[in-house]
């Protein structure tokens, strides 16, 4: 049990190193010369050489990678070229928008997916089941940013109910209202995906012998589905939520740009437009690292959720 946990943590640590190596590879080794980008195409040879030295491009790449990894560990993530500020500070500020947005969207998605999936699984072949199957297929095919554009039209400009864009900062009153529409747009496709997971997982459980026993001994239908069904279906549902986290973050980065929210997605677009490699590298490392850590957390949560994992 302990060995299993340690092994899983070790695997995640190794994956994190690989992730940072991939980011390093993208900005240092892949064709495209960061020093040339930094000084511009018409710079003098001496200026170019100075930039190469400043970026450490004259040392062999394994040494540079170790240095880069050391910098990451110490919290020295380089300085943004566009903002002349530490990339770490910019990313940290972006996270204060992106994380609440993604969290709100995930909560909304689960709030829709759990009841819908349970209802569908407990009456297979009935209208609620068929409707769920249809909604799930349509929902997973919808692009988040398209939903976002249409929602703005409907709720912000059409009815004037919610703010259509921008973010006043967390100090402002009712700042979270600015996250409502973006998180609905983000949540819908994720809700469809999760509802499908819940339906499949609960339907699996409801075919088990112990569920038939529970029914036979006269347990109320809601207890059979709610307690036996949901409790045992929790594992695949948590797995699904973990797997969809990557899509959720990526979707948030796009949807932020529809609403002009100052999160990681806006920073990423600025980094592309300004060819701001240190900022892009910091962003990619944080987002990819978060995805690795969430997948670790999901695996570790099995130990809590499934007693069988504790006594293998």
């Amino acid at each position, binding site marked *: 049990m302990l060995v299993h946990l340690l092994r899983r943590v070790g695997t995640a640590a190794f994956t994190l190193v690989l992730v940072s190596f991939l980011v390093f590879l993208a900005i240092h080794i892949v064709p495209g010369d960061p020093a040339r980008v930094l000084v511009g195409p018409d710079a003098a040879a001496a200026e170019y050489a100075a930039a190469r030295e400043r970026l450490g491009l004259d040392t062999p790449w394994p040494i540079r990678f170790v240095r880069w990894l050391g910098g990451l560990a110490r919290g020295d993530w380089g300085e943004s070229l566009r903002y002349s500020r530490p990339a770490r500070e910019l990313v940290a500020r972006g996270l204060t928008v992106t994380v609440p947005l993604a969290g709100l969207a995930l909560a909304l998605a689960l709030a829709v997916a759990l009841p819908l999936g349970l209802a569908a699984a407990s009456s297979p072949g009935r209208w609620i089941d068929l409707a769920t199957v249809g909604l799930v297929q349509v929902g997973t095919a919808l692009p988040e940013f*398209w939903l976002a*554009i249409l929602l703005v*039209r409907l709720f912000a400009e059409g009815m004037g109910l919610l703010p259509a864009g921008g973010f006043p900062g967390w100090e402002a009153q009712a700042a979270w209202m600015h996250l409502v529409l973006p998180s609905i747009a983000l949540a819908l496709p994720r809700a469809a995906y999760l509802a499908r997971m819940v339906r499949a997982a609960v339907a699996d459980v409801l075919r088990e012998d112990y569920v038939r026993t529970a029914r036979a001994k006269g347990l109320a239908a809601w207890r059979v589905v709610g307690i036996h069904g949901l409790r045992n279906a929790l594992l695949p549902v948590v797995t699904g939520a973990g797997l969809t986290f990557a899509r959720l973050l990526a979707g948030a980065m796009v949807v932020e740009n529809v609403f002009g929210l100052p999160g990681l997605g806006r920073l990423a677009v600025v980094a592309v437009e300004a060819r701001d490699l240190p900022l892009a590298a910091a962003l*990619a490392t944080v987002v990819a690292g978060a995805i*690795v850590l969430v997948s670790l957390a999901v695996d570790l949560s099995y130990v809590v959720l499934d007693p069988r994992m504790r006594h293998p």
Partner: protein
Amino acid sequence: MRRHLGLGVGVACLVLALAPVGVGFLWLPYDPVLPGPVRFAPPSLEHPMGTDWFGRDLLARVMVGGRASLAVALLAVALGGAAGTLLGGVAGYAGGFVEEVAMRISDALLAFPAVLAALLLGAVWGPGLPGVATALALFNVPFFARLTRAGFASLKRREFVIAARASGAGPGRLIFRHIVPNLASPLLVQATVSLGAALLAEASLSYLRLGVQPPFPAWGRMLREAQDSVPLSPWPAVFPGAILALTVLGLNLIGDGVRDLLDPTLRQSRRASTDVRSRT
């Protein structure tokens, strides 16, 4: 009959969505790039989808806008699928240390959603199709790698493979004659679903102005251009997104339908584990 309903609806959606793109190669109702006389015309017989800010016919733009999106998505799934299949195949066949390293590479790639990888490559290479296509291909690698590794790991212990080995078949024959043909259908299903995901990601990126560059239309960028004029006319924002969603819906339904058709044991709702793997 009802078993094949999803598949039939999927094919219908895909044909409905892609027929305009196909016809667009032979005939276009209007020039998709040149401005026209009537701005923001609502849908009518003359302009079935209406016109945009510059009076350009939306149908013509949607017909042309699908080309780059579809080409990039197809290329990315083909390249990423081939690379992932190779990586997973080597891992599953070799086992041990090689398998461990290959699967950690796959795990690391899984941490880069297509949009993130494309933004990183966009910062290095500048916005454009090469970065987007590479990012989408890399994003697809782990899905195919996991599928192939699992298939190899279970198939190489099956009797018919052991029998072939006992009768003197070399690794090449074992892999290409006995193992890969048995994985063809799950890989095909994955490719269908991956194509839908790649189209969605490509549209997001072209919305962020990372993909096809102006003046050529692309579904994602058409939505970007339509966004600011939504209060004046919603149609430029409705149709490109609807066609995109219809394409993805069709692909997903076909993927699910073909999987059910090929593997009756997965029919009904016993799909939790396979669903987790093929889509996120």
